[in-house]
Each structure stands twice: as structure tokens, then as C-alpha cells.
């Protein structure tokens, strides 16, 4: 309260000065009556579930369009049919497709191995390149070259080199996961505020302490951005890799379904891909909320 009265008291003497000038006089009167302006404007109250409304509406429209026969069920089966297919794939082990959960596990495992290898390599390379000029000169140029190569254009090369087993799939996913993570973590390390590093030097931190307490936490926000990009690209790489002669997994399920022209199964598998991507994204968001809690302080104050 006292703040408002004070600010109006300060504002008053300036008013005639402002009106004497032709241009910027508008700001004065608008500030004088903030209470009136506030009540006149209807405030938009937000709830988290508001975000669900438009997707649910889209599914409903899809259902209506399909069941009304506007689009043939062959081209676009209604959501209810897709759901029944999903339930069947879970409950019954079909000879053509296996089970949905089985396929999902295989794909998840591929993703986990590929992502783990790629992320681990990315972190090691980013540390080497980020923490020394020598390391940067050694590691960064080849990785920059790798980054400019079209990832999925490498598929034929990998087939020639590694055959059609698990290895080319793992490498493709690892590259998809590793490159964005490396680029962002490297940039993150290099963008750590030099003034903080200097302050830490005056505190007589050892090199290890400096890296642990200053450089890595400073690089973390950018690294987490990289992690999300890297998960996105790794899922994409998984989908592409699984199109290449997989004999198990969601991609195998899709290629089987393509042969039988079974759009239902394809849609189910795609939905599972999407769902897995959503889950990993949510995990990273949670990680961000925990690890970057110090930034929320900025918003709250």
C-alpha cells in the first residue's frame, strides 16, 4: 500500500512536465488509475488441463469423420478401431506381429543401448573439447564433419560396413543421440561466465573443484537443451534404423503391417513411438526442474 501511494506522490510533480511535452504524455494518466484498469480487464485463468482440450477435440473430429464415412476406414480407421487393435496386440500373440509389449521392449532396449553409448561418448568428447584447446583441436573438427553428414544418408554405408544386424542400428541411434548432446554440452562449457571462473580462481579452487562446482553446473542448462534434442533425434534414428531389416521391434511390426496393408497396426506402432518419446521428454523436463531449481528463484522473486 505504502508503495503505491509513494509512487503516485512521486508521479504527480512530473505530470505537468510531461504534458508540456507533446509526445510521451500518455504514460502519466494511465499509471494514475491502475485499479480501474485492472478490474475492467477480464483476467484469463489458466489450468493445466486446458491444454488437453484441443487434442481431445481433434480425436473426436477424427472419430466423427471416420465413422460418418467421410473417409474410408481403409484409409483412416477411426480411433476406436485403432484402440481395439492395440488391445488385441497386447492380449494376443499373433504369428505375424508378435505382441505389442514384446515389440516395444525390443525397441526400448535398442534405444537404451544406442542412446547410452551415444550420450556417454558425447559427454566424454564434450569434456575433452570443452576443457582444453588441445582437446578441442583434436576432437571438435571430426565431430563437426560428422555433424554435417546427413545422418540417415549413412544408412546404406552402415549396411555395407556392418551388415543388417543390431550393430548398424545401435550406431545410427548413438550418432543421433550423441551429436546434439556433444554440440550443446561443448557450447555450454565454453559459455560459462568467465567472471565466475575468475571469482572461483580467487577462492583458490583446484582444477577439479573448478570443473565440478563451476564449469559443469554452468554448462548444465545448455546440456539439458542438448539432451532433449538428442532424445528427439535418437527416437527418429530408431524409427529409421528399425525400417532396415529388423526382425523384431516396433519397426518390424510396421514393416509387417505394411505388407498386409494393415493401417491399424501401423497406427498403433506409431502411437507407441510417440508415447515413448513423450515419456522420455517428460523425464528430461523433470530433470530440468530438479537440476535448474536455482533458476526458478529468478521467476518467483
Amino acid at each position, binding site marked *: 500500500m505504502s508503495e503505491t501511494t509513494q509512487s503516485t506522490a512521486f508521479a504527480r510533480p512530473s505530470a505537468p512536465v510531461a504534458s508540456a511535452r507533446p509526445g510521451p504524455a500518455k504514460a502519466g494518466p494511465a499509471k494514475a488509475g491502475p485499479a480501474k484498469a485492472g478490474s475492467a480487464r477480464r483476467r484469463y485463468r489458466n489450468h493445466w488441463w486446458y491444454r488437453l482440450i484441443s487434442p481431445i477435440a481433434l480425436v473426436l473430429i477424427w472419430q466423427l469423420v471416420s465413422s460418418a464415412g467421410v473417409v474410408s476406414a481403409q484409409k483412416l480407421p477411426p480411433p476406436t478401431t485403432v484402440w481395439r487393435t492395440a488391445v488385441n496386440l497386447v492380449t494376443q500373440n499373433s504369428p505375424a506381429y508378435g505382441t505389442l509389449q514384446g515389440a516395444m521392449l525390443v525397441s526400448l532396449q535398442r534405444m537404451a543401448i544406442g542412446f547410452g553409448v551415444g550420450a556417454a561418448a558425447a559427454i566424454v568428447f564434450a569434456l575433452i573439447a570443452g576443457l582444453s584447446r588441445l582437446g578441442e583441436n583434436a576432437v571438435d573438427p571430426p565431430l563437426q564433419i560428422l555433424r554435417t553428414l546427413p545422418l540417415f544418408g549413412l544408412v546404406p554405408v552402415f549396411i555395407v560396413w556392418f551388415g543388417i544386424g543390431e550393430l548398424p542400428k545401435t550406431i545410427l541411434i548413438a550418432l543421433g543421440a550423441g551429436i546434439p548432446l556433444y554440440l550443446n554440452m561443448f557450447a555450454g562449457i565454453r559459455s560459462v561466465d568467465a567472471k565466475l571462473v575468475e571469482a572461483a580462481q580467487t577462492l583458490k579452487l583446484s582444477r577439479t573443484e573448478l570443473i565440478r*562446482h563451476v564449469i559443469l553446473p554452468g554448462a548444465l542448462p545448455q546440456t539439458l537443451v542438448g539432451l532433449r534434442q538428442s532424445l528427439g533425434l535418437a527416437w527418429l534414428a530408431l524409427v529409421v534404423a528399425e525400417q532396415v531389416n529388423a526382425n523384431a521391434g516396433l519397426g518390424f511390426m510396421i514393416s509387417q503391417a505394411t505388407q498386409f496393408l494393415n493401417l491399424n497396426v501401423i497406427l498403433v506402432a506409431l502411437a507407441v513411438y510417440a508415447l515413448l518419446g513423450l515419456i522420455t521428454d517428460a523425464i528430461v523436463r523433470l530433470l530440468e526442474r530438479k537440476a535448474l531449481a*536455482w533458476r526458478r528463484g529468478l521467476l518467483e522473486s
Partner: protein
Amino acid sequence: MAPRTTGELAACVRGLTRAFDNDRRVLDDLDLDIEPGEFIAMLGVSGTGKSTLLRALAGLDPDVTGELDVPGTVAVAFQEPRLLPWRKVLANVTLGLRVPDPDAVARQALAEVGLAHKANAWPLTLSGGEAQRAALARALVRDPDLLLLDEPFSALDALTRITMHDLVLTLWQRHRPAVLLVTHDVDEALQLADRILVLADGHIAASLPVEASRPRDRDNPALIELRHLLLAELGVTKEGQS
């Protein structure tokens, strides 16, 4: 507390020179002695190398030449607080602190600067004055023999600055480190220092003792006279004023 190092200087600088790429010498054959427990303020127009000298004393500039002897522990507070935003205030103060019970020692230091209640706060939630006090606590907790202050009050509002002046004086009187305060503010220097240095052309152009007892009254004639002298040294006195 009495000065702990007797006889030994807090800092001894001889022939200190710092040249930048284009052969411009920011510091040019500079000599400086800092007595233990002495409060020095250093003035100088922008670009005269005040911060360069301070960084050299802090051991942050490997490219200076000449003799630089700082035997004791050194702590620095910069113009910006430079707290690590991802560590709570207490963890910022304990960073690199090698004593048996760092947390307790750090809490004590925070209490001294009036920030005991903010020990668990994130730095980004602090006001400018609070953050600067946390930075002071972080410097003081190391029990320095030489405390370097690089314009630490220049970003604060005028009222906060006065409070900070009193706080720095209190802390200095209690712990008695030698202090080198770099500042633009002639009045700040007059309020705080035992000795005022004017830096010009890369070396100490003037060294003026301030003998008035603390707390100092701005209207003290001796200070007013010193003020004129300093402004003349800094080249800002108008014709006929002094």
C-alpha cells in the same frame, strides 16, 4: 584484533608493468607498498589501470612483469557479486574454504554481514545489496591478509552504498586485513581510507594520507581540502575553484 603480520608488508610491488598487444602500457613501472591492516583507496580516471593492478594483486593476470610479492592470503570482492547462481548462499561462502567446520564458519560470516537468514536462499533471489554482502562474507570468511575490493559499491543505490560503507568499516576494524579499494568515488575514498592513491599514466601519481578520525564528517575542513586536492589530481577541478 591486532594486525597479525608485523613487520611484513601485506603487498610489495616493484616495477610492475603490464603492456597490452598494441604495446600500450596500462601499468608502467609501478611501485606500491601496502602496510598490514592499512585501508587504501585507489582513484583514477577510467582506463588508468586500477582494475589491472587489482587483478595483478589477486593473481589473476599472468602477463604482468616486475616484482609482485603478496605473502598472505588474498580475497577479492568484485563490482558484481559473482556468486555461483546454482549454489545456495551458504554453499557460495563455503566454496574452497578449507577449515574444519566450513558451514559453521560461513554462517558466522553471513551473520556478520547481516545475512544469516539468507543462508539457504538462491543467489538470484537476493537484492543487489544482499548479493554484494554475501560476496563480502565469501571474501572475509577466508580471513584474508589483503582484501581487494574492485568498485564493489558502484552498482548499488546511494542508500545501500552508505550502509555498505559502514559495514565494510566495521568488518575491517574487527578483522584488520589490509584493504585495497578501487573506486571512482572521491567521497567514498575520503570516508573510508587511511591513504588515498591516485593512479595516472600507469603509476601512482599521488599518495595522500587521510588523518581524520572515523566516523568522518563530510564537512570536516581537512576532508574538503583533500577533496579539492584529489579532484585536481584527477584533472576535474574547474578553473578558479581551488
